[in-house]
């Protein structure tokens, strides 16, 4: 196996099709990065929401028992 390009600029040029090749890879990897970002942070967001709800209910329960 042998590299098909003589230099980095040759590689970036992609035989004259650089714009199209890098545009397609750019869009593909940026969309994947956004998807992966949202996917990895979702667990934290979900847990935060549940924790907030749980704490609110705890406070309500305390308030109720304090009144009685």
């Amino acid at each position, binding site marked *: 196996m042998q590299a098909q390009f003589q230099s980095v600029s040759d590689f970036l040029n992609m035989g004259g099709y650089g714009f199209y090749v890098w545009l397609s890879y750019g*869009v593909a990897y940026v969309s994947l990065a956004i998807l992966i970002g949202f996917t990895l942070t979702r667990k934290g967001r979900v847990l935060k929401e*549940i924790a907030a709800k749980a704490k609110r209910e705890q406070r309500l329960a305390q308030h109720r028992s304090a009144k009685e």
Partner: protein
Amino acid sequence: MWKWLHPYAEPQRAYRLAGKFIPWLSILAILMLLTGTTWGMVFSPTDYQQGDSYRIIFVHVPAASMSMSAYIGMAIAAFIGLVWQIKLADWMAASIAPIGAVITFIALVTGSTWGKPMWGTWWVWDARLTSELVLLFLYLGVISLYASFEDKVLAARAAGILSIVGVINIPIIKYSVDWWNSLHQGSIKMTGKTAMPPDMLVPLVINILGFGVMIGALSLIRFRSEILARNGMRPWVRELALAEGAK
């Protein structure tokens, strides 16, 4: 016979089991995509007709073929959820949908940027391109149906029915290039005189499998979040939330 499967249908077990697979699938996906992409971009020979523009194939074909496979996976999960009323299957279907939508979007955009230099146009309303666009709309429909009901059992039923009906679009995408005249090239041939040479085919197959493994890993990560979101009242989720979500 199926009794051993039953415990895995419990959310907490499914959550733990999915967690065990995620690191391995992620590492495997990264390795495969790095290998396939580097091989394809740097070492595969230049195409005699299309020059180096054909190198878009190493992201376009994996995205396009996996956009269909992911859809079938989602529809099977939706079917299991609908028929046997297994909520975990519904949650899996809901987890796959956004991933499928992004993969379909990638297939459309990379196809477009390949079409411009080779066909002279970004877009044509022919069967292959239009049916792939319909696939994107199906995914978006499933996502918005699932999101638009407060009652997630009802939401999963509505989204599930749409995803099952939408399966009809998959053979249309697959065979569109054979059934109708199209600017789009036919299926890649593995054997015969016009077969793709191994120097191009092997990295392509590695990337296709890599996309598949990546979608699997991402589905499991979303599946775990979905389990937590749907079981917010359970004690084990509350404990986890108070321990981790409070930070």
